């Protein structure tokens, strides 16, 4: 028997969808093995995860709450990845967004009505994330520095800077020595649906953002240029596309979306700036998988964001109910990503299995 790998000439939407679900299924099977090895019934564990997230009103509300930052960040990442700009720094773009909006909230907040203050804080968060996102774009184009390294390293810088702020100059007078800033003024706090942590304003921003980015990628001239850059840099040069301008704007949007997520967490959930890992539960990294599962279509992150939010919420649930370690969710997400990326191989290649011995001519 011989196995040949051949490039796939044609691919259809149905086939792509089949491969997507096949990859998810294979990922779940692999996770089942991990569950089984740690002495848990895999079917029950996976069922419990999805029951925990989608099986009750409480679960659904929590899932939507956690989906919001994932959709905001994931749609921005999907757009960057479309140009093959590997932004791994959303975590820090989120933090810088949170820093900017905290400053606006604390300094201008007391004097402004909500209708002015809230958009202003979102805008400042977008600008903060955008500036932080533009740094690796400039470094890459002007000095050829690999963006994977620079975006990853900028995560540490931003995280340490947040720690410095909350234990140092921004430490709140009202927080009794804890490393938190003071609470944002009431005008800065987003109203939530009753008995939930979902802010309608924030949810609308996330959904609209993902749809707008989807439109940008597939309908706008800017999106056309980033897709040409992503697919063939030689052709991009041949057609006179301005790499510097396009990639800097692209990363401003990608970073800005993560910045919005930072402001959203701050204004809807936390109400003050604190340690980086309490502000973001690794959303900047989980969103990488969200973007990938959405097949790099920003609009589809609305669905894939909900899916991974469900896994986070359900993972918390089985930690409590089945005594699984906290790392379970990370293992789960990691497995899914690996299988999704493997699935991409089958979109571009087909496997042919020939029976019988082969005879070399």
């Amino acid at each position: 028997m011989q196995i040949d790998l051949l490039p796939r000439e044609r691919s259809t939407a149905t086939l792509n969808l089949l491969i997507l679900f096949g990859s998810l299924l294979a990922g779940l099977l692999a996770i089942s093995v991990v569950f089984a090895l740690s002495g848990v019934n895999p079917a029950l564990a996976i069922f419990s995860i999805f029951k925990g997230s989608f099986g009750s009103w409480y679960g659904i509300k929590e899932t939507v709450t956690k989906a919001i930052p994932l959709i905001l960040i994931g749609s921005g990442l999907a757009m960057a990845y479309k140009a093959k700009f590997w932004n791994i720094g959303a975590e820090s773009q989120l933090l810088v967004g949170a820093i900017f909006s905290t400053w606006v909230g604390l300094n201008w907040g007391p004097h402004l009505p909500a209708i002015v203050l809230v958009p202003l804080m979102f805008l400042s968060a977008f600008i903060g994330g955008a500036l932080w996102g533009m740094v690796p774009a400039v470094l890459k184009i002007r000095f050829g520095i690999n963006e994977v390294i620079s975006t990853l390293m900028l995560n540490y810088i931003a995280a340490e800077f947040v720690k410095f702020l909350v234990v140092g100059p921004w430490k709140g007078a009202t927080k009794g020595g804890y490393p938190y800033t003071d609470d944002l003024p009431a005008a800065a706090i987003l109203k939530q649906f009753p008995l939930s942590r979902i802010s309608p304003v924030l949810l609308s921003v996330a959904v609209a953002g993902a749809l707008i980015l989807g439109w940008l990628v597939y309908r706008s001239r800017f999106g056309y240029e980033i897709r040409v850059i992503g697919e063939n840099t030689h052709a991009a040069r041949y057609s006179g596309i301005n790499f510097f301008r396009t990639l800097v704007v692209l990363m401003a949007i990608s970073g800005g979306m993560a910045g919005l997520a930072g402001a959203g967490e701050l204004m809807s959930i936390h109400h003050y700036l604190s340690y980086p890992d309490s502000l973001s539960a690794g959303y900047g990294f989980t969103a990488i998988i969200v973007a990938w599962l959405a097949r790099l279509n920003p609009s589809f992150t609305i669905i894939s964001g909900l899916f991974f939010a469900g896994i986070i919420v359900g993972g918390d649930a089985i930690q409590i109910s089945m005594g699984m370690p906290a790392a379970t969710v990370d293992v789960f997400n990691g497995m899914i990503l690996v299988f999704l990326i493997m699935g991409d191989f089958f979109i571009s290649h087909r496997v042919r299995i020939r029976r019988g011995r082969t005879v070399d001519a």
Partner: protein
Amino acid sequence: MDRIQSLEMRGISKSFQDVKANREINLTVSSGEILGLLGENGAGKTTLVNILYGLYHPDDGQILINGEPVRLRSPKDSMRAGIGMIHQHFMLVEKHTVLENIALGYAEAPFLFPQRSLRGRIRELSAQYGLDVDPDKPIWELSAGEQQRVEIIKALSRNADLLIMDEPTSVLTPQETDELFDILRKMTSGGHSVILISHKLEEIMDICNRVMVLRKGQVTGEARIEEVDKGKLAVMMIGRQIAAAYPKTDIDPGDAVLEITGLDVDSDRGLPAVRGLSLVVRRNEILGIAGVSGNGQQELVETITGLRQPLSGSVMMKGVPLDHADARKAHTLGITHVPEERIKYGIVPNLLLYENSVLKRHRDEPFSNWIQMNYAVIKDHAGKLVDGFNVDAPSINIRVKNLSGGNIQKLILGREISGGPDLLIAAHPTYGLDVGATEYVRKQIIELRDKGGAVLLVSEDLDELFMVCDRIAVMFEGRFMGQVTPDSCTIEEIGLMMAGSTLQEA
């Protein structure tokens, strides 16, 4: 195994799908001899030596070493038989030292500290052949010439008797070329033999004992070097028959569209590519640029299309200087471009046909405004291109990578011509296309000229230039050797100019 006294390839044929890359080729080379392998791009030289190096398997024919048939199934077999190959692009690890590179994959090296045992051997080979190179320097610090010496030492340390060199001088300065030839002479006097692939006639005359010329996969000439001169070689390489020119309306050329004066351009490696070149292309005129590839044509085209910055000289498009232009500025001045490497530059394989139909024109009205692409108009335009330029595609919604080479080229040509450009730069527009597509592309170029466009056609195919052009300029080492009209010159004259003689000498 004994040293190679003689090597023979007998009746070698090799096809790739429908293309016959080698047809019934016989080649012999014996100890102490340098055989030049000459031919245009795509003549089958590389295929032939790749067969010898075990990278391809011939469909037919056999290889004999010292009269014994051998099977070369992989480069490993070839190396064991005493055949070494030095590729045009060096296969060295940049960060490692010379010594480490030579030790890499050296079969007799011990597992630990493999490079130690080799130091003596390298010193020996260096002294014997004048291969001067510091074994402890990392590769990235070395010049192209030194890196080539490392490759030669590497091959010799594996006891290569026959060395295949694929266009070894294309990356060298003239000084380094002389040094290389000294090394090759020393090697052959020590009983080694060399197969040298080149399309520079000068070099073949300089260094080879014998020469074999390939054209379209077949041997078109073979001779001892004393029996030929550059002119004869050029004719062998080009072929004799020149087909009749296409019918063209008799129009006097109009205003100058492109004017270049005193242009100097360097290549990527910083070597001189174009020197002191001047030309004018007018409306209703096709200016052909003949010449063996690598004589600066590519750099010239890249400069005009805004992809490369010249050192000095002026390029004027319709009276507007093309200073510090990028591809976009060249485009807005009315220059369109059918690039040499059409898949690499001309299309985005993973985007759909209609998306590719506006590449570079995607910023022009009515295809887009400042923010939005107008896909309705674009699809309409793509449909017209497919119909108008005979692109054989099932739909405009397929990825362009699924089209054949000829259809991709028709699409690119259509895209570049349909807007009625003032100047079309076409680089090797029919290279690799089948007869039908070739004819179609040439007729379209003539039609553009008849309608008032100016065309600069770069081609290695003299047939094409004679059939299509109004004037032909011959380029050699970055300069024009002369300009002729197709009806008042012979192919021998062109051949001589391609080999570096000026028109007066010819």
